[in-house]
């Protein structure tokens, strides 16, 4: 009998084309997702060397980072540089014959939402994209990670990557989550516990009862932020929920191929006794709704906490915390719930799916956002948007005072016109609170969609559980 293997080991083994003596492998890539920001130089490289895309049918392109989220964008994008990038993707997709969802297609959206939605992402696959949040697809039990533009070119030309295997890390969330606590709180709490370099050199497998109890969309939220924990990828073993989610999607296998796929997918789990190089365990019932206070995703605290002081930390983090507090304009000892906000952003590849919009709408129903608040919802794809309109969620957002936008990455990274001005403070459901991330001088607090919705109503960071109690 062969030695017990982890889920990561199994997927890796099934994709090694060739292994050198020093452990360097050529790894086969099943799906290559492409967006407009990290691909132009790669396609240009192919042109300059006269190379082709080896597997255009496994290459899926969609513009998302730059696109405005306001009407009229199909015909014109005001920002010239953004327009050039979107036009370049359009031309490259046509010239090289890859699968393409242009802005005018209702299926357009954030690449990490479109892939699963269209059934391109399947268990056991290797999935890459020139985007660090490719980890999202790990929710299906796929090995999915971000790559740079040189590697994008390498995958386009060869359908492989030169890789060395990472170590195995297990993150187990035992027990069940308490009411008001979500997948976002899990993933932020893990980063808070391990730090942004805690997963460096590792692939994380998330497991445990609380993970099993999450929906597929919740699992995508958890895996999405594996990168903020420093890991190469995060993944979750596929189960009946996974298979049910995949079944019937446009590019999911059908008929006999479905049966064959299902038989294979059921072998995708970590064997009893397989070795993990690092193990982190959190109790599901200990996780509270959390927010970030600083400028690193590891700056996580329960909403019931207070702003820390630099002296609460050690080593290089003391200076980093001092800088973060200065940038964020916060005073140590302030209750987190006393922090006033002026902007709310609900969306992104972390929390731009239908369940996220449902969770936010449930908090907002029959309520208004605080006076002066600027709040926007940016659905993760055109299809999520359409579904939310059909379910009446869009109307709840609009009635509450939110702007109801078209699909894209939007204010998560503010490459399009959706940006914070200096000093503005945002409750955001996205994934990064870095300095300037949402706009130069902008201040970001990361949290779940329900928490962001609660903050929109009160005008300050808010414990959504209290609002739930009022509603009950």
């Amino acid at each position: 009998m062969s030695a017990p293997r982890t889920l990561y080991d199994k997927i890796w083994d099934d994709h090694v084309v060739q292994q050198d003596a020093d452990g360097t492998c050529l790894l086969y890539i099943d799906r290559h997702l492409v967006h407009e920001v990290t691909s132009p130089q790669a396609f240009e490289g192919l042109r300059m060397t006269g190379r082709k895309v080896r597997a255009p049918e496994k290459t899926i392109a969609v513009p998302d980072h730059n696109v405005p989220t306001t009407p009229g964008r199909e015909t014109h994008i005001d920002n010239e540089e953004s327009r050039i990038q979107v036009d370049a993707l359009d031309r490259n997709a046509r010239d090289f014959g890859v699968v393409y969802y242009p802005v005018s297609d209702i299926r357009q959206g954030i690449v990490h939402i479109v892939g699963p939605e269209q059934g391109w992402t399947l268990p056991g696959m290797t999935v890459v994209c020139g985007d660090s949040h490719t980890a999202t697809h790990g929710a299906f039990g796929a090995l999915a990670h971000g790559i740079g533009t040189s590697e994008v070119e390498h995958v386009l030309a060869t359908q492989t990557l030169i890789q060395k295997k990472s170590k195995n890390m297990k993150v187990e969330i035992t027990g069940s989550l308490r009411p008001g606590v979500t997948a976002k709180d899990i993933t932020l709490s893990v980063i808070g516990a391990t730090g942004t370099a805690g997963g460096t050199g590792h692939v994380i497998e998330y497991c445990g009862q609380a993970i099993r109890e999450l929906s597929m969309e919740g699992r995508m939220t958890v895996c999405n932020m594996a990168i903020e924990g420093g890991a190469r990828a995060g993944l979750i073993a596929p189960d009946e929920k996974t298979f049910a989610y995949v079944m019937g999607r446009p590019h999911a296998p059908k008929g006999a191929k479905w049966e064959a796929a299902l038989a294979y997918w059921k072998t995708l789990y970590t064997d009893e006794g397989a070795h993990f190089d690092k193990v982190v365990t959190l109790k599901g019932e200990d996780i509270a709704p959390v927010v970030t206070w600083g400028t690193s995703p590891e700056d996580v605290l329960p909403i019931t906490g207070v702003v820390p002081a630099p002296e609460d930390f050690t080593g290089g983090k003391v200076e980093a915390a001092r800088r973060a507090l200065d940038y964020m304009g916060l005073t140590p000892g302030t209750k987190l719930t006393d922090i006033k906000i002026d902007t709310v952003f609900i969306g992104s590849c972390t929390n731009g799916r239908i369940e996220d919009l449902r969770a936010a709408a449930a908090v907002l129903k029959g309520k208004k956002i605080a006076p002066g608040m600027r709040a926007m919802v940016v659905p993760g794809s055109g299809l999520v948007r359409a579904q939310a309109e059909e379910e009446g969620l869009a109307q709840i957002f609009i009635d509450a005072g939110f702007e109801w936008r078209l699909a894209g990455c939007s204010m998560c990274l503010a490459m399009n016109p959706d940006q914070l001005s200096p000093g503005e403070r945002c409750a955001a459901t996205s994934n990064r609170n870095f300095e300037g991330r949402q706009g130069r001088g902008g201040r970001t607090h990361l949290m779940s969609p329900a928490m962001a919705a609660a903050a929109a109503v009160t005008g300050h960071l808010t414990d959504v559980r209290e609002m739930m109690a009022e509603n009950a």
Partner: protein
Amino acid sequence: MDKFTKLTGVAAPMPLVNIDTDMIIPKQFLKTIQRSGLGKNLFDEMRYDDQGNERPDFVLNQPAYRRAEIIVAGDNFGCGSSREHAPWALLDFGIRCVISTSFADIFFNNCFKNGILPVVLPQEAVDELMDDARKGENARITVDLESQTVTGSDGKSYAFDVDPFKKHCLLNGLDDIGLTLEKAAAIDSFEGKAATLRPWV
């Protein structure tokens, strides 16, 4: 890609931990469709004020470090996005080597594709080299990839590890797509087998 063999140059001290790719090159500069020209916006928001004037206290604006070729940085340098614009901006400014206790994975790989050497050393060594870098332009640090050593201005040497394949590519300035395309037969054969084993992919 330019080769990296041996470099002796000024090292800029950047002791901040978790220097992320949004700091290295903010997103408004990712709209280019070229690889070059990003050096002037390297560390843009730390380097310039809101009016676009240089902030005199930022290390790369100080006379001693304006031509730095090496950065000695705090832990977890390059965390965040996969943007290769980060190493492109460093390279365009003239940085060929970054020394830290740890790097984010994607950034680390991206460096090697662009002739930049990321060197991982233990905390103590980074602390000593940081002090060295603080001495300014007279304190030059030497990074020798062949012998895998960093030597401070006082002559003290530190050995570092590097992946043999990555070292080979960097020493010779090799394009790894060309190397992989030589293995086309193996890729063909893998695809043939996979089509039988996993026909739904």
